[in-house]
């Protein structure tokens, strides 16, 4: 049976985050924690493969104990097992340190439940917002990566081949690869299902498996958490809105206004730069 691992992250719903205008700091209170939007699409794709071919779907997250809730949501949708990789030592990880721990966790999941055929990630997170963790994991596990997937055209479990459509700025690319692969999911990939009733019942009782640093005997502790993260946030600030001296153009009727605007534009360097004659 196929073994699929989905990496999900619980994130603050950044659309709800406000800036306190007095202190210029983020107001996080009352901001709901959600399963990262794109990760639900990754999970849905795994569940579809499970429906069609039969598969074991393991969900993994690295995060604080409160991320349990996000994992239970994945169970309610139909994931078989959920793992919370959680330890104070993991805190403050950037994408490099995160991909290391997730790759270790995926290897451990292989030891527990059999070789992994596919890893599924979201396109990017709402908070980290880099899209780097997926490629990072693929690299660590030395498997092929197919990013920004908007469609899985087919999966041949006999030949162990997959064809996907990758979304690019100027078109779509059809790519064939050999399993195992890592794919990162776009929202166009599918529409995540709602939880089923049996799923909800199972989720209510479900306790995710928790792995800490002690569960990874060979872990290099200098490569995790804040210490293992080469990027440092040196400062944050709220951008000043750009200020310009707006010239309001007025006139007697739309024609006069339009004419005045054109005269102004022709008086700038635009005609020269744009080749207006």
């Amino acid at each position: 049976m196929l073994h699929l691992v989905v990496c999900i992250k619980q994130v603050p719903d950044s659309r709800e985050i406000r800036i306190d205008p007095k202190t210029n700091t983020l107001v996080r209170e009352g901001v709901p924690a959600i399963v990262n939007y794109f990760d639900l699409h990754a999970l849905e794709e795994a569940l579809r493969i499970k429906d069609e071919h039969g598969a074991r779907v393991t969900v993994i997250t690295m995060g604080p104990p409160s991320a349990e809730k996000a994992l239970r949501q994945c169970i309610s949708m139909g994931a078989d097992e959920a793992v919370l990789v959680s330890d104070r030592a993991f805190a403050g990880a950037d994408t490099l340190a995160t991909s290391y721990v997730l790759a270790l966790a995926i290897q451990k999941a292989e030891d527990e439940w059999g070789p992994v055929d596919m890893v599924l990630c979201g396109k990017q997170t709402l908070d980290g917002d880099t899209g780097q963790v997926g490629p990072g994991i693929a690299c660590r596990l030395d498997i092929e990566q197919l990013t920004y997937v908007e469609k899985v055209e087919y999966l041949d479990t006999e030949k162990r081949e997959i064809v996907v459509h990758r979304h690019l700025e100027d078109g779509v690319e059809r790519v064939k690869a050999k399993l195992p692969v890592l794919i990162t999911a776009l929202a166009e990939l599918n529409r995540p299902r709602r939880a089923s009733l049996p799923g909800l019942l199972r989720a209510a009782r479900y306790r995710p498996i928790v792995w800490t640093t002690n569960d990874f005997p060979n872990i290099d502790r200098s490569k995790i958490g804040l210490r293992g993260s080469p990027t440092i946030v040196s400062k944050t600030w709220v951008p000043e809105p750009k200020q310009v001296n707006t010239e309001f153009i007025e006139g007697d009727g739309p024609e006069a206004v339009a004419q005045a605007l054109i005269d102004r534009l022709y008086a700038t360097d635009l005609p020269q730069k744009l080749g207006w004659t």
Partner: protein
Amino acid sequence: MAEKEQKERKRKPMVGLQPEGDVDWSSYRGVLVVVEQRAGKAKSVSWQLLGQGRRLADKLEAPLMALVIGSNVSHLAREAIYYGADRVFLCDSPELENYRTRPYSRVCLHVIRTYKPEIVLMGATYTGRDLAGAIATHLPTGLTADSTQLDVDDERLLLASRPAFSEKMLATILCKQFKPQMATARAGVFEALPRDESRTGEIIPVPPQMKPEEITTEVLEFLEATGKVNLEDADVIVAGGRGLGGPGAFRLLQDLADELGGVVGASRAAVDLGWIGHDHQIGQTGATVRPKLYFAIGISGAIQHVVGMQNATYIVAINKDPEAPIFKIANYGIVGDLFQIVPAITNAIRQRKAAKDAADPQQPSTPQTV
């Protein structure tokens, strides 16, 4: 248990834990820009990054390098010099025709480890992010995604700033521990240098790092999205919002755009209402653009829209509400009804061109079909 241990032992050691080779970071010098291309055509973000790379390299008093990977792409190596590079690495081979992560990343890793740039920049495109994520893990080093500002300080540290929390904040990110310092940067944020054919530089051929038979992924085909607007490269954008009241009014904007040789953009509100396709959307969840002239028509100027277009050289706002925030960033403001103003502007331009053509019949300024 014994079986389990055996499995663990069979595994290759994980990559990306220690830098390969020497870690004398002081020998790392210069800025490297990885040029992105498809079918021999470079993405404009590559030249924009060479422009910014030139500014950083000059500040560091170090060379600006470019890496061109593909098949039949030697002309792009010359272009990279015209756009500011001192030295270009060229990996030109049939199996590199289509981008694929492994063969491309191996070439990048080879060039980075051999020529040791202190900074590596790539476009924050789908391909650029795919490639940068793989390379940074392999090296390993720190990578900042989606930068909108790039600078260096006195200690030669790269200050890569990027929006965070849905553009509500900016954060400056450093990488002190490793070299090179890597960043991807958005299209449309930095300005390319003027193309200068008199510039000279060195082109260094680089061999592919994988044999064709080692490459297991295959690009079956590329389906070009036809009719897709290219907002990032447009010099003139005529954008409309909810104030248009419906899809029909986009016709007025298209007419104006046609006269100016521009393209039509939109606010999210107009896109969400289904008046125009998502590929026209400008702003935080759409394109970041840097045209020379931007018309914001019936757009209120919400911050999520403004972050995507505030770097336009000239902004003209047309809105019936004099208090609309868009006027705060506009060079020219017109308070009025877009249904009257926009056709009047289109007309005024036509008349101006017609007058010009009448005065100079040999060189009509409107394009003619032969």
